[in-house]
């Protein structure tokens, strides 16, 4: 896994990064997608074969948010060896924070027409808004919570786990337990997050109708832009010396300690960054799919993220993005065409990848002669 490409040219690190072939290629693709899709959706007439339906556009927007989640997981798993089987929890928490804002935006347009309380609270005969719903009528507050809630949970969890040197499979099991516990908690009506049904029936975001094509296109572009920023940020982290310390921790943790690095601080930092990115991804996901429910916390979701990253190719960042797109596209197709086959196919893909493509699709691409030249010069 040649995860760190040495940067030799001068200039600030960020400029060097943008000059990098893999980064610029990634950003170009994303930019093309962000420009092309809205044009094909809005400007091309519906009967044209080049028209992209709003459904497809929203679907792609969902994939983009999944790609961001995969990026977050690759940052800790691919570079630092932290196999989190609970990253869906941070995604869902970010999603819930956004969902709460969207619920408050509904106002008195709910089925029960209560000016303050969301429908599910009226249904439960609650008379006032729980304290933790306060402030969510303000977008800036919700945005802050989208960062803070996953970040704080990751900090508390990571602080305890990494300080006690919980690693490997034990850490994976605890992360799995974390997301499972949250799922059970969020299923309860008394928690005040809509229980089983979660949060849905959103009307608008920042005053714009969520059902309108313009809003959908904007959300799509915003997601693409944030994915690009997250990518550059992760790339910056992984190409800095910090990134090389992460790789050292992944490959020889105790050696790194004897070199004088406080491994737990490094792990904690990257874990929190990853959780925050996952939270942002969740917040972008919710307005596009229109619902968030406790199912997002389910352990299987978190395991699926790992499969995206493994199939795409771990430790490269863009591999994770490719993996998220391919697996989710396959999921969309197969769950519609052959619903009973999907889980077998997913399992099969994972087995084949593990056995024959340890570096995932990214590794396969490196081996193709057409692409080989460029990747070689990159690694030189």
């Amino acid at each position: 896994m040649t995860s760190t490409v040495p940067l030799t040219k001068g200039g600030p690190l960020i400029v060097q990064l943008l000059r990098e072939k893999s980064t610029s290629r990634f950003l170009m693709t994303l930019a093309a997608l962000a420009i092309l899709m809205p044009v094909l959706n809005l400007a091309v007439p519906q009967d044209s074969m080049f028209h992209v339906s709003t459904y497809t556009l929203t679907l792609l927007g969902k994939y983009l948010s999944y790609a961001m989640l995969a990026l977050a997981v690759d940052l800790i798993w691919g570079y630092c060896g932290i196999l989190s089987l609970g990253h869906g929890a941070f995604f869902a928490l970010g999603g819930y924070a956004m969902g709460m804002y969207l619920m408050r935006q509904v106002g008195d347009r709910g089925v029960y027409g209560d000016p303050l309380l969301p429908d599910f609270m009226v249904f439960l005969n609650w008379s006032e808004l729980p304290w933790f719903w306060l402030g969510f009528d303000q977008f800036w507050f919700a945005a802050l919570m989208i960062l803070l809630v996953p970040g704080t949970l990751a900090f508390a969890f990571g602080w305890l786990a990494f300080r006690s040197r919980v690693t490997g499979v034990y850490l994976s099991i605890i992360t799995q337990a974390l997301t499972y516990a949250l799922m059970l908690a969020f299923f309860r009506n008394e928690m005040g997050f809509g229980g089983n049904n979660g949060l849905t029936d959103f009307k608008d975001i920042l005053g714009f109708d969520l059902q309108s094509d313009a809003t959908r296109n904007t959300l799509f572009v915003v997601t693409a832009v944030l994915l690009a920023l997250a990518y550059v940020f992760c790339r910056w982290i992984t190409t800095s010396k910090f990134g090389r310390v992460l790789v050292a921790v992944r490959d020889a943790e105790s050696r790194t300690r004897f070199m004088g690095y406080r491994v737990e601080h490094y792990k904690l930092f990257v874990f929190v960054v990853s959780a925050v990115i996952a939270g942002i991804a969740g917040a972008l996901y919710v307005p596009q799919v229109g619902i968030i429910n406790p199912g997002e916390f389910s352990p299987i979701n978190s395991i699926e993220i790992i499969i995206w990253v493994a199939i795409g190719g771990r430790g490269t960042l863009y591999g994770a993005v490719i993996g998220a797109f391919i697996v989710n596209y396959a999921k969309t197709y197969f769950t519609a065409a052959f619903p009973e086959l999907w889980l077998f196919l997913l399992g099969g893909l994972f087995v084949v990848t593990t056995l024959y493509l340890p570096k995932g699709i990214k590794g396969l691409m490196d081996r193709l002669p057409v692409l080989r030249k460029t990747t070689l010069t990159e690694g030189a």
Partner: protein
Amino acid sequence: MLSQISLQEKTALYLSGVNKSFDGFKAINNLNLMIAPGELRAIIGPNGAGKTTMMDLITGKIRPDSGEIYFRSAIDLTKHSEAEIANLGIGRKFQKPTVIETLTVFENLELALAGKRRVRDALLFRLDPQGRARIDEVFDTIGLDDRRHHLAGSLAHGQKQRLEIGMLLAQSPELLLVDEPAAGMTDEETETLSRLLKSIAGEHSVVVVEHDMEFIRSLDTTVTVLHEGTVIAEGPLAKVQQDQRVIEVYLGR
């Protein structure tokens, strides 16, 4: 024998009355050891004599049940973590060469290079000319210059051993603990290594744990014999080899 060492003397490393048991097995038993600044010391002993446990105790990986471990006559090592001890100036080379295989030789040295170790420092790190010069110096000592930008994982066993020693040097420690460096090396590699260790001593204190007698001989220095977690003989190799107990437990076999 050595139990009356006084702390007043300037020592690089000082162990007194150290004990450590694992589930009732006494791995280290009233161990006393003193290393002078700049000294090169070889420690030998049969398997299970407690050599690696001793290293673990000094580097803070495990804590003694009782006894004192002092660095530079003043710092109580039993109160510090591995990372802190490393930053105080004690470098450790593992028995199995552990370099970061997925990084280049240069990057390995850069990581080990003495400097601030906080997260923020690592994020904003730029290699300065002094750092680069220091790395070049290390390359002069360990060789491997032609392998500078190769992945460390591609190195031969002996080269990895040298790289790991280079990483210790880049850390600029006062005290180097080297665990069985000659294991699995060719004769030629062993010779290079022995010369390297001798050249390092003086500027740094070096403790080499080894059971390859040829290698110990080539180091030509004071030897401490460890048996069942305690020191049974100390002195030049020739003298130690005459010692009746040493012959019994180790050399005679």
